[in-house]
């Protein structure tokens, strides 16, 4: 029999996954946009100096090569180390990076808890001690780094004029929320669950859909768990989910340099978009499709700008 807490854990996770997926789908299904890449584009073979295929003649005949390895390297450096912030805003990086790295470790910790539970269920006991060690390392470093980073981010966000001025209330709230989850987690870990045994048992109960009993949870752990679930539900609706955006800004805009050759996929998409109808109100636009607007310009202009 599943407890309400277990059900809420499944639910929180499901909502998280579904809404994040929905966000990915939302951006993936947007129409093709005009090309707007920004160099250096790391998959260009000439990326060292930021060059592109335009440095050559007869670009349509050119056999395009992509340095996928370098693109991966650039991606990982940015994801794992926040390279651009390290290079351009070091003071903030000192708190932002520990926070992000800590969160990654906590996610790894969660994954390890899950893997460990699967190992137990599958009867592969030999690997469980290894998982136990890794869980301890990832969990301990993760929660400490993320908490310190989060605290640092909050202090910066509130204490630094340019960060505070540009933040809405919700951005401070997001950090407070994350900090509440982290602090309760830190407390629960140190005081009640130094070896993450309760966490392991709880995960096992989830993986076995309740056939393994749920451990009894001291109140602080219960509070932490509920807060964590709420955070999971909350994240995809907010900017904390900027990893979705980051994927698309780089892959769909800044590094997206596919040529529109006759008969190509790009051309097919462009043709569909050219059939969209405009409804802009300026006098030089006549409310026709983009294709018609482009071919037969209307060229009226305004004399004065009146309300």
């Amino acid at each position, binding site marked *: 029999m599943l407890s309400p807490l277990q059900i809420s854990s499944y639910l929180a996770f499901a909502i998280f996954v579904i809404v994040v997926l929905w966000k990915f789908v939302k951006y993936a299904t*947007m129409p093709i946009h005009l090309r707007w890449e920004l160099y250096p584009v790391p998959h260009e073979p000439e990326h060292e100096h930021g060059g592109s295929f335009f440095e050559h003649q007869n670009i349509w005949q050119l056999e395009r090569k992509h340095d996928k390895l370098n693109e991966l390297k650039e991606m990982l450096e940015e994801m794992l180390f926040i390279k651009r912030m390290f290079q351009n805003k070091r003071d903030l990086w000192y708190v932002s990076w520990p926070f992000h790295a800590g969160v990654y470790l906590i996610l790894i910790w969660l994954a390890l808890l899950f893997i460990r539970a699967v190992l137990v269920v599958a009867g592969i006991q030999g690997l469980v001690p290894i998982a136990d060690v890794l869980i301890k390392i990832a969990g301990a470093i993760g929660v400490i780094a993320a908490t310190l980073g989060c605290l640092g981010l909050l202090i910066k966000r509130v204490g630094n004029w340019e960060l505070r001025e540009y933040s809405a209330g919700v951005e401070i709230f997001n950090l407070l929320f994350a900090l509440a989850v982290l602090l309760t987690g830190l407390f629960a870990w140190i005081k009640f669950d130094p070896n993450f045994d309760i966490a392991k048992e709880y995960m096992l109960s989830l993986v076995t859909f309740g056939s393994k009993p749920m451990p009894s949870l001291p109140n602080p752990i219960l509070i932490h768990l509920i807060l964590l679930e709420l955070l999971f539900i909350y994240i995809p609706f907010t*900017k904390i989910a900027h990893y979705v955006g980051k994927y698309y800004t780089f892959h769909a805009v800044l590094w997206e340099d596919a040529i529109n050759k006759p008969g190509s996929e790009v051309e097919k998409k462009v043709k569909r978009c050219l059939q969209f109808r405009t409804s802009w109100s300026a006098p030089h636009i006549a409310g026709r499709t983009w294709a018609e607007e482009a071919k037969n310009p209307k060229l009226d202009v305004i004399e004065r700008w009146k309300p």
Partner: protein
Amino acid sequence: MTKEVRIKDIGKPSKQLIKLRLEDLMKLPPPYDKPGEEPEMTEPKEEWRERYITELDGYIAIDVPFEKPKTKEEEQRLIQRFLEGLKKLLDKENNWTFLQPLLLSLEFCAKCQTCNDACPIYLASGKKEIYRPTYRSEVLRRIWKRYLTPAGKVFGKFVSGDIELNWYTIARLAELAYRCTLCRRCTQVCPIGVDNGLIAHEIRKLFSQEMGVAPKALHELGTVQHLKVGSSTALTPEGFKDIIEFIEDDIKERTGKNIKIPVDEKGADILLIHNAGEYLSWPENPAAFAIIFEEAGISWTLSSELVGYDAVNYGVWYDDVQLARIAMKHVEVARKLDVNRIVVGECGHAHKALCVVADRVLADEYNIPRESCMPVLWDIVRKKKLNLDPEKNNFPVTLHDPCNMVRLMGVVEPQRKILREICPQFREMEPHGVYNYCCGGGSGFAIMTSMNFPEWRNKVATRMKFKQILNAFKDCIDPSIKKYVCAPCSNCKGAIRDMLDHYQATMKCGIYYGGLVELMVNAMVDIEEPFIEMF
């Protein structure tokens, strides 16, 4: 610390949000490090205040007269029209062209402020708050959140931050969209890939495509004139043919060469399109192209057809519909001439507009290859099709990288390889290549000359480039040593010309400017007289 201007102040009823003072601006290197070396800043005239928007910083980019709302109803109408435009920017059919990049940039900015110090305008202004790359983005973001998202409607200020949408906000935002050169240097450093330059671009589009409002140099005298008369310079097909004759005569006079410039020759490999500003302001540039192409045996032609002799496409700065229209005309001309490809001359934004951005408004018979002139020129040098003597260019030369050609298109090395071959005293500016600074004339600023806008351009927008140029020549800054800034872009040349004039840098430091092909012709062994004149 409290800064003088806050985000919500954009809607503050006041005569002028900020006032620039010379002493606040970024310091310049010698000989401009002493007071009195550069002209003072001026006040906007009173009559301008009545007719135009001086409420931002006192400078006027939008030279279409603005009737300030006199009643609450009028103000409401303006707000409604603005919001309608904003909705269309976020609508698939009306803005498929940039919907995805725009939404990403609106939704995901982490407000980390990593981007600010990459912006030459923000730095040059002495870090004036309103020029911070994130300032105008945040204003638009707050309006979007507050008025057009469910969360903003329910939770108000808590999710959107403080913003008031009134006529001050709208008018100032319109001007503020023209305080960014769309150089996208800030985007390069953003850890999320958020694009503040793009947001400025989209604000410009909102005003142009919804309200018909844009600087006259870009719209009425720019794209509209381009499509009607044939060129944004007002050059007609007849005028163009006259100039070509003049250039042929001039080549004969200066080099002794009899060159017949091919015009409207069907079936050539290349249709070469120049920024028509070259014919009027720097005819030596198309002349040099003609000399080089003829000498190298390239199969090429120019076009005398409407729009076909002017490569510019100002639409790329403020209006996607106009962008598409001009790009269509360019390829139509090429199609009629049955050329293999269009090659764009020394004009950065024309490069980007035709080869990159407009690549996705062309289809079927309108889709033909469009390329940069730089690899063509490098191939000519590399294959030794010209007899060049670098000693003829033995003076200090530095290279300006046009943002549109370099950071936004990746054409970085061919022009450098040429300079390394033919200019023994070539030196780089710092930073350079894809990390260069804009000349300050980007996004239309070079050709926007109404009222006091050039003062803002020269003082703020070009200041960083001027500093870079001075630093590149610091070992030879004495005016008796003639030096050359190679700027392979018409708009950059325009901005640099005005900059050198404003700071009297030719007189004080011996700095001259020009294109790349002029240096190539100057190095040609069989031309006796110097092709580049520096006096």
